[in-house]
């Protein structure tokens, strides 16, 4: 009887997640412009993808993006969360401040960075130039465009990590922390031997989610550079979007989307294995 409770969510999941997902898998084997009738072409889309230099460029950018987000926001988040554990006064205030960028609409954050910080005529870059510092808009340079977007995304993201890690750290038993302190553990020792091991499941989950989110990244890149200049900030999702909606290559875009899912699935697989191992322990 209790299984009936699963039906409402199951219906939603099947209709708005499973069906489109299955359709995407099927479409990856078709040539389709999104308007006329699809034609079955077997593995042709995947063969084309293999030989597409922009695909490899986009994949490499996704890997760089993942590496950036697996390190910086997690490290900053851990430090900020541990500092929140130390301060008692103003803790709520700092949590709100850390979390604030997360609740600002992405398009606003992206436009602020693009127009009011990086822009060489209306941004802080322009001001620095006026004071004689030779600073360029990172979004306009092939070597820095991806990192320029990543900085804006990192700025809005690390606070979220901090709040999540802080919530996890608050669950760590006070006795454990107190006894470590009595034993004479300093900040780094406390972090290394008590806090981080205690919140490891949360860190692992955030890392897995980071891999999935990094391969899905779209909004900041699409708003700030649209993958340019010259594809140097292109990632798989912007490539799929371009193929589907600008070039009317929906089948090819579906094949690209499948590759994105493949990385997400791998990350999810590792997470489930990790969880199972923990459950077994």
């Amino acid at each position, binding site marked *: 009887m209790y299984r009936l409770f699963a039906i409402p969510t199951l219906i939603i999941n099947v209709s708005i997640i499973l069906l489109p997902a299955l359709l995407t898998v099927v479409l990856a084997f078709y040539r389709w412009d999104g*308007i006329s009738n699809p034609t079955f072409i077997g593995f042709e889309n995947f063969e084309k993808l293999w030989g597409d230099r922009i695909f490899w460029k986009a994949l490499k950018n996704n890997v760089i993006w993942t590496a950036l987000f697996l390190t910086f926001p997690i490290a900053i988040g851990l430090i900020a969360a541990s500092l929140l554990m130390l301060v008692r006064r103003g803790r709520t205030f700092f949590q709100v401040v850390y979390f604030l960028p997360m609740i600002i609409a992405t398009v606003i954050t992206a436009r602020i960075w693009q127009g009011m910080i990086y822009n*060489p*005529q209306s941004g802080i870059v322009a001001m620095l130039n006026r004071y004689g510092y030779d600073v360029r*808009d990172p979004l306009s340079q*092939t070597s820095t465009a991806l990192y320029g977007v990543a900085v804006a995304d990192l700025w809005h993201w690390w606070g979220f990590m901090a709040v999540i890690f802080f919530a996890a750290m608050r669950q760590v038993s006070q006795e454990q922390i107190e006894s470590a302190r009595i034993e004479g553990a300093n900040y780094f020792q406390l972090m290394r031997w008590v806090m981080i091991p205690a919140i490891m499941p949360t860190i692992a989950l955030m890392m897995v989610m980071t891999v999935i989110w990094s391969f899905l990244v779209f909004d900041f890149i699409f708003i700030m550079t*649209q993958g340019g200049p010259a594809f140097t900030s292109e990632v798989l999702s912007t490539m799929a979007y371009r193929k589907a*909606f600008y070039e*009317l290559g929906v089948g090819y875009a579906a094949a690209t989307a499948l590759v994105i899912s493949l990385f997400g699935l791998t990350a999810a697989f590792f997470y489930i294995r990790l969880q199972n191992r923990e459950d077994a322990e």
Partner: protein
Amino acid sequence: MGHRLKIISGALVAFVSAQAVVAQDAVTWWYEAANPEQQAALTEFMIDKFNAKNPGDKLTIDYRGSELDKQLRVALLSGTGPDVVNTPGPSFVATMARAGQLMALDDIADEKGWNDRILPFFMDLGRFDGQLYALPKTYETLGLFYNKAVFKENGWTPPTTIPELNALADEMMAKGIVPFGSGNSGWRPANEWQVSIALNSIAGPDNVQKALTGQIPWTSQPFVEAINELDSWWDKGYFGPDYFSLNGEQVMANLAEGTAAMSPTGSWNFGLVPEYFNGRQDEVGFVGFPSGEGVPYPIFSLGIGSTFSISAAAQNPEGAAEVIDQVFSEEFYTDINNVWQGEWNMPLRDLSGVSLNEDVIPLYTESMAALASAVNENQYGYTTWTFMPPATNSYVVSGIEEVWLDILSTEDFLAEMDKIFQQELAEGKVADIPAR
């Protein structure tokens, strides 16, 4: 009892009046982005006038933003969407018409006299497989805006040939003035304006027409020379140091300030002139882009901002036809162009009944007249976004950046472009190109 009767009769009256409202047939039209002033203009000149003239219909315009075409495609595919369909251009119409999503308009065009009212060249662009599916909403062109005050101060005159242009641009560079005020930060496809200019003004519209109809490949020598020239402008710094950072408004501000002397861009920018050349609108000039050797001057590349069609699944096709008919009237042309220039340049044959008010800059009216005469004399070219199929045009936008940034050679860029184009040509995705 009397109280209850009042309530019942009140409810009945409300029900009957609601039925009267429902009895009006809705006509739906999805429009792209428009600012509040522009929306107010459309309400006043289109919705209110339409509803007054057609008491049985009720027009609603839904502003869908810059992603309108994607929303339309999904909606039409599922058999829904608006009655009046605004597509981004003829190449999209071709695919949609062939998929049976649009209504053939030949009978309506005969009945409403559209063939007599609209320039035949533009009517032809809406015909596929012998049937009319779309009318062009607005036609636009590319040219060279320039700051007359800066030109006068330096004793310069607008160039008409490529060598003259190069000499002038070098002189500007030496004085620290950016020759080509331009940027693609707000609109990445701004790159296609530069490619369209190079292909038409240097390789020439005859060659472009031959390539678009599959008679010659895009790898032909005239196109190699055109793209090489465009690449050399980039390498010499004509586009300035901030091309990838500036948006259209900043470009116009730079032109008005004189930090940039010229701007190769489109006629839609007339809409920005009053704001940036405020009170000194006589300081802005607009001429055809200089031509290469053997190409007549000026060549005005034609573009169609968007097109009007009626959805095959329209709930109210007659109402939609009335809306389109109203758009192509002298009255609407006058009303809307008085307050919103550059976006509603419908290709009407006869503009003699149109008189724009004094607030509209004379340059706009003059430039549109020059454009019309260039079309008459066959000195028109083809913008990539109107005449190239979607994947080829998308490649042009990104690929040219790779040429500029020395990631690709001109030959490799054109070879890739030709490969994509030939495939789309074979798939029937290229709009029918009228003979010259």
